[in-house]
């Protein structure tokens, strides 16, 4: 069976770009009417031709989301554990070359942050670190999960890609999901933005979801950093990746996130701008083609936009996030990984959801299972 790297190599980026650009309104209509939409339908739905069908797409996305997920929204909070990083990523505030104070939370500090988030009502938590195996290797992560287990029922992480045996240690300990973004599926662009560190190995990162699934993880989150490359082509490859994973690892659940490149001090500008309408089109396209997956939106996006997205396909969101280690209590002044847009409190967001007829769900997992 081919691995995803060899599948990816069968596709030419420029051909896919042309193919998406040339999709016609008729193909968009066919995609909207398809009983079991395909990846070709996905391309039609993210194409420029579909821009005129955004209202129909939003209607369909809303209906499908309601059917599958009901009138609910899964709430989670990120907890940054460390900003140590051995990689150079041109777009990231934690990049090795950025001269910022580095910090990795101690046990005591982790618990202080945990108390704060627990008090806010969170039961689902996402642990985030830079990519630094010496500082935040398996041992550190394992310890963090065991410290946090009494506080939260659902623990996910977004850290450096690990080996399968590492995941096999963390999953029984209580790790539910792992997010690993390829950033871009364009090999050359990837190389430009990740010139140094373990992250420069495109294929090791690309095969991380396979290692996670083989280790028995419950949920895998994937995505591209929207703005590094043409968002349409990168999203098609993300969908191709998702389709590959779903067929092979049918017991695993999947989540897609939509990080748009955000400014940070000294960072790069997006190569390709993505408007709010573009992002909405992409979210709807995912929902129409992949009815069952979690679609997640973070506080990178602005409040007014998020308030609308909660009706249109999104099923998981964070609130009041801090993107610096210790950002909630321990060291609120330290430099953030990126600026957040929606700074409203957890309670304000929860109330917004309730006013919109959506029930915020704090707990949807039982750690003891």
């Amino acid at each position, binding site marked *: 069976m081919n691995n995803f790297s060899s599948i990816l190599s069968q596709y030419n980026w420029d051909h896919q770009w042309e193919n998406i650009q040339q999709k016609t309104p008729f193909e968009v209509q066919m995609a909207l009417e398809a009983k079991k939409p395909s990846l070709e339908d996905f391309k039609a739905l993210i194409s420029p031709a579909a821009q005129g069908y955004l209202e129909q797409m939003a209607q369909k996305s809303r209906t499908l989301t309601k059917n599958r997920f*009901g009138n609910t929204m899964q709430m989670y909070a990120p907890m940054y554990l460390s900003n140590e990083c051995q990689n150079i990523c041109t777009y990231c505030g934690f990049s090795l070359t950025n001269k910022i104070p580095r910090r990795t939370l101690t046990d005591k500090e982790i618990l202080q942050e945990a108390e704060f988030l627990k008090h806010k009502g969170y039961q689902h938590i996402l642990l985030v670190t830079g990519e630094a195996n010496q500082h935040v290797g398996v041992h550190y992560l394992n310890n963090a999960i065991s410290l946090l287990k009494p506080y939260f029922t659902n623990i996910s992480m977004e850290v450096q890609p690990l080996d399968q045996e590492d995941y096999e240690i963390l999953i029984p300990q209580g790790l539910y999901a792992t997010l690993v973004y390829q950033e871009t599926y364009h090999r050359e662009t990837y190389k430009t933005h990740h010139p140094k560190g373990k992250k420069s190995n495109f294929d090791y990162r690309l095969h991380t979801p396979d290692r996670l699934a083989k280790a028995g993880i419950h949920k895998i989150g994937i995505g591209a950093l929207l703005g590094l490359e043409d968002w349409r082509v990168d999203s098609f490859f993300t969908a191709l990746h998702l389709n590959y994973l779903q067929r092979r690892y049918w017991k695993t659940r999947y989540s897609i996130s939509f990080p748009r490149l955000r400014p940070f001090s000294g960072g790069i500008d997006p190569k390709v701008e993505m408007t709010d309408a573009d992002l909405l089109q992409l979210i709807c396209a995912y929902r129409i083609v992949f009815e069952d997956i979690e679609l997640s939106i973070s506080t990178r996006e602005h409040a007014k936009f998020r308030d609308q997205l909660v009706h249109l396909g999104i099923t998981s969101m964070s609130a009041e996030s801090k993107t610096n280690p210790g950002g909630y209590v321990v060291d609120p002044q330290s430099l953030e990984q990126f600026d957040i847009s929606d700074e409203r409190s957890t309670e304000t967001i929860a109330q917004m959801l309730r006013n919109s007829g959506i029930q915020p769900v704090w707990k949807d997992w039982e750690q003891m299972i």
Partner: protein
Amino acid sequence: MNTKLTIAGKSFRSRLLIGTGKFSSSQVMQETVLASESQLVTVALKRVDLKNEQHSILQGLDHDQISLLPNTSGVRNAEEAVFAAQLAREALGTNWVKVEIHPDAKYLLPDPIETLKACEKLVKLGFVVMPYIHADPVLCKRLEDVGAQCVMPLGAPIGTNKGLKTLDFLEIIIQQSTVPVIVDAGIGSPSHACQAMEIGADAVLVNTAIAISKNPIQMAKAFKIAVEAGTMAYNAKLAKTTNTPQASSPLTHFLYE
């Protein structure tokens, strides 16, 4: 069919089971459950806060006419299901469990092999097991053999609202079963629920169609009436469908007068 639904010696006036997921708020859910007059209400164990004795999701369902039926949604194999059932027994004080094992993340279709294994084990541990399964007549008999107190075959995949896509197999299951048959999943409208009762199902379980309707309370009442109508029609014996017309006043009858 008796007027009451009886499972493991316990009788229920209502033949409508209702799920508590997908509602816009706990309050709407509670009012809907009460309006449905359902007496057997499912709740996902994973949504219950076991560390919080108040169990916010369950508040308002503490009613002497309502029995809670925890389900094992989220588990991927028999071993996890058994563990979840034990947790539920401890937390909610009931030995009834709806066994849901659907490792298939996309369509949430139940795993027949793991379900059978889990039920066998749980029966031995003293549980009243109610397995959610595909409409597979042989599997239903196997589940009866290991002591399942009812079977819960699907009409269509969960949340699709497509109705009784498995109709022919449901009819075989109902014809052969010695335990109550509760049609679960896929029931999208009161007419689907009515149809399930007309073919002789003992009860139906509905969640999505009620929870996401514009007016869940009205919809719950509509389902209640539909289930009662279907039961009544089944008891009154439905006329057979035929391919040739049968006149209610035969045209040649005068010859024999």
